[in-house]
C-alpha cells in the first residue's frame, strides 16, 4: 500500500471499507501533512483536533456503507459550516461563526466525511490568483511564489499538495477550473442548479455553483454524486434525475461528437496552449470521438458581459454587510458613517472595486446601457451554445490562456487579471457544466489544463470524456514538496 496521503479518494475509500486502514489513521496522516505545510497558507481555519475526534468516533462504530466513510477533507471557506468560523476570505467576516450548515457540506458529512478545516480563497471569491484574500497569498505547490489560481486557490493548492484527498470549491467565472488547471488537478463546475447554493456565501447568484476538486476524474465523479441534490432551500435548485456519476463512469466515448470552437484561438495565446489543445484533439480522436469544428461567435463578448453581470449581482448581495447583524463593525459618528466606515475598512480593494462597478451599472440612468445590455448579450452567448449543441455532444477548449503566474505579477492591472477567465466565463454565463483536467506542462514545467464543456445536466457525458482522455494523457505530477523542511 502506498503512503496514505498519496492515495486517491477511491483507494482510501476501498482501504477503509476493507479495514486495511482506519479513519483515524487516514485523518492523522492528512492532518500531519497539513501541519507540515503551513508555508502554503492553504488553510484559513484549522479544525484538526475535532477532526481526529470525529475519526475516532467513526472507527468505534464504522458505517462502511457510506460513500465517504471516515474520509477527512477540508473545504473552501465560502461554505458555511455550523459552529466553525466561515470568513469568505474577508476581514468583514473574520469572526463569523455560522449557526447553520450549507446543504453541500451537509451532504458530504451525511456520507461519512470529516471536516479538517477551511481553505483559503479570494475575498468573496473575487479573484483569479487568491491574492485578494484577507488571510494572505496561497503558494502553489508546483513552484515557490507561484499563484495557485483563484478564487478556489486554497482548495487547489491543498488537493495538489495532498493536504486533503478531495475538496469542494465554488465557480462563478472559472474559480474551480482555473485553479485546477494551474495546479494539475481536476475540477468540475456543475450545471447551474445542480448543487444547492444554500449556505454558500453569495457572490453572483445567477452564476455561482459549487463543485468538486480532486486528483482524478473518478474521485471528482464520486464527490459530485454526493454533493448534487435537489434542495428546497435554494429556489434555483433544479429537480432533475441525477446520475450515479462514479458508478456510471465509462471510458467508452466512441462516436461522441466533440466540438472545437474556432473563437477560442485568441490573440497572443502562447504556442504551448495551442499545441496542448491540438494534442487534446488527437487524444479525443484516439478515444474514438468525432471532432467537429464549431463556432461560438459571441465568445469575445463574454468577459465584458461577465464584468457587468457579476459585479451588479455582487453589489446587491454584499449590501447585507453593514456592521449591524453580523461581522466586522467600525464605529461611526452616526448610522451612515458607521456603514461607510465598516464597509470601507471591512472589504478589500478588489471587492470595493466590484461593488462600485456593480452599483454604477445598476444606478439610475445607466441600467439600460449596461445591465440590460449585458443581459441581452448573455442571451446571445447562451444561444451560441444552444446552436452548437445541435451538432455536438461536448466542446473541448483549453482551460486557461496561460499557465500559473508569479505572485504579484498581475495585481496592478485588473483587466489583465480578468483575462485569465476568458475560456471559463462563457460556461457560467450559459449555466453549463465544465470540467478541467490536467493535460500537460509548459516549458517551465507548470501544468496546463483542458476544459470539456457539456450540455446542461450532462455531467455524466463530460466526466466520461474526461475519464477517457485522462487515461490517454497519463499526466505526470511533478511536485517535489519544496515547502516541507
Amino acid at each position, binding site marked *: 500500500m502506498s503512503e496514505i496521503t498519496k492515495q486517491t479518494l477511491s483507494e482510501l475509500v476501498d482501504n477503509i471499507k476493507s479495514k486495511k486502514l482506519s479513519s483515524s489513521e487516514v485523518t492523522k496522516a492528512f492532518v500531519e501533512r497539513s501541519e507540515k505545510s503551513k508555508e502554503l497558507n492553504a488553510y484559513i481555519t484549522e479544525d484538526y483536533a475535532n477532526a481526529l475526534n470525529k475519526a475516532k468516533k467513526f472507527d468505534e462504530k464504522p458505517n462502511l456503507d457510506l460513500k465517504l466513510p471516515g474520509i477527512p477533507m477540508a473545504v473552501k471557506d465560502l461554505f458555511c459550516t455550523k459552529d466553525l468560523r466561515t470568513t469568505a476570505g474577508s476581514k468583514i467576516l473574520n469572526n*463569523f461563526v455560522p449557526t447553520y450548515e450549507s446543504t453541500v457540506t451537509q451532504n458530504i458529512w451525511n456520507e461519512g466525511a470529516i471536516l479538517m478545516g477551511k481553505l483559503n480563497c479570494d475575498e468573496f471569491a473575487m479573484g483569479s490568483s487568491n491574492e485578494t484574500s484577507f488571510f494572505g497569498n496561497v503558494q502553489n505547490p508546483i513552484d515557490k511564489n507561484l499563484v495557485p489560481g483563484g478564487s478556489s486557490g486554497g482548495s487547489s493548492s491543498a488537493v495538489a499538495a495532498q493536504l486533503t484527498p478531495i475538496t469542494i470549491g465554488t465557480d462563478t467565472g472559472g474559480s474551480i477550473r482555473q485553479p485546477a488547471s494551474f495546479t494539475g488537478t481536476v475540477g468540475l463546475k456543475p450545471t447551474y442548479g445542480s448543487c444547492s447554493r444554500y449556505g454558500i456565501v453569495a457572490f453572483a447568484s445567477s452564476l455561482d455553483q459549487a463543485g468538486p476538486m480532486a486528483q482524478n476524474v473518478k474521485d471528482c465523479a464520486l464527490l459530485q454524486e454526493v454533493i448534487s441534490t435537489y434542495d428546497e432551500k435554494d429556489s434555483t435548485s433544479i429537480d432533475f434525475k441525477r446520475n450515479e456519476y462514479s458508478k456510471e463512469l465509462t471510458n467508452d466515448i466512441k462516436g461522441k461528437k466533440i466540438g472545437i470552437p474556432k473563437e477560442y484561438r485568441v490573440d497572443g495565446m502562447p504556442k504551448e496552449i495551442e499545441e496542448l489543445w491540438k494534442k487534446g484533439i488527437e487524444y479525443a480522436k484516439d478515444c474514438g470521438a468525432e471532432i467537429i469544428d464549431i463556432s461560438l461567435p459571441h465568445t469575445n463578448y463574454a468577459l465584458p458581459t461577465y*464584468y457587468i453581470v457579476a459585479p451588479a449581482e455582487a453589489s446587491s448581495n454584499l449590501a447585507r454587510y453593514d456592521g449591524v*447583524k453580523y461581522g466586522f463593525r467600525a464605529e461611526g459618528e452616526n448610522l451612515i458613517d458607521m456603514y461607510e466606515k465598516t464597509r470601507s475598512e471591512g472589504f478589500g480593494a478588489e471587492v470595493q472595486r466590484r461593488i462600485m462597478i456593480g452599483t454604477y451599472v445598476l444606478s439610475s440612468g445607466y441600467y439600460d446601457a449596461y445591465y*440590460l445590455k449585458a443581459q441581452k448579450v*448573455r442571451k446571445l452567448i447562451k444561444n451560441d451554445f444552444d446552436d452548437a449543441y445541435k451538432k455536438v455532444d461536448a466542446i473541448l477548449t483549453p482551460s486557461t490562456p496561460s499557465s500559473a503566474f508569479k505572485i504579484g505579477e498581475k495585481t496592478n492591472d485588473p483587466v489583465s487579471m*480578468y483575462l485569465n477567465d476568458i475560456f471559463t466565463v462563457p460556461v457560467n454565463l450559459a449555466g453549463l457544466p465544465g470540467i478541467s483536467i490536467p493535460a500537460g506542462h509548459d516549458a517551465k514545467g507548470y501544468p496546463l489544463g483542458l476544459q470539456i464543456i457539456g450540455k446542461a445536466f450532462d455531467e455524466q457525458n463530460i466526466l466520461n470524456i474526461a475519464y477517457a482522455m485522462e487515461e490517454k494523457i497519463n499526466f505526470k505530477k511533478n511536485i517535489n514538496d519544496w515547502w516541507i523542511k
Partner: protein
Amino acid sequence: MSIDLKTIKHISKLSRISVDEKKAEKLAGDLNSIFDFIEKLNELKTDNVEPLTSVAETTLKLRSDEVKSKNLRDQVIKNSPKENEDYFVVPKVIE
C-alpha cells in the same frame, strides 16, 4: 467614456463605502480601464434580443406555506457585533 472623481464620490455614496481623495483617484483609474474594456458590448446590436435573466429554464416550484424553522432568535443575534438583550444595537438614529 470617462468616470470622473465626482462620479466616484456619487457611486461611493450609493455603495456606502467611504472613499478619500487618494482612493477615489485610484478607483477612477481602475474603473475607467474596466469600462473601456466593457464598452466592447456596444459593437453588438441587441434591439430585438430578449434579456436573459435566468439560465434555468424552469418555473419556480411552489411549496406549502408552512413554518419549518422557528425560535431562531438566539441564532440570529449570535453573530451581531453589538446587541442588547434581543435587539441589534446601532448608533442613535432619531434625535
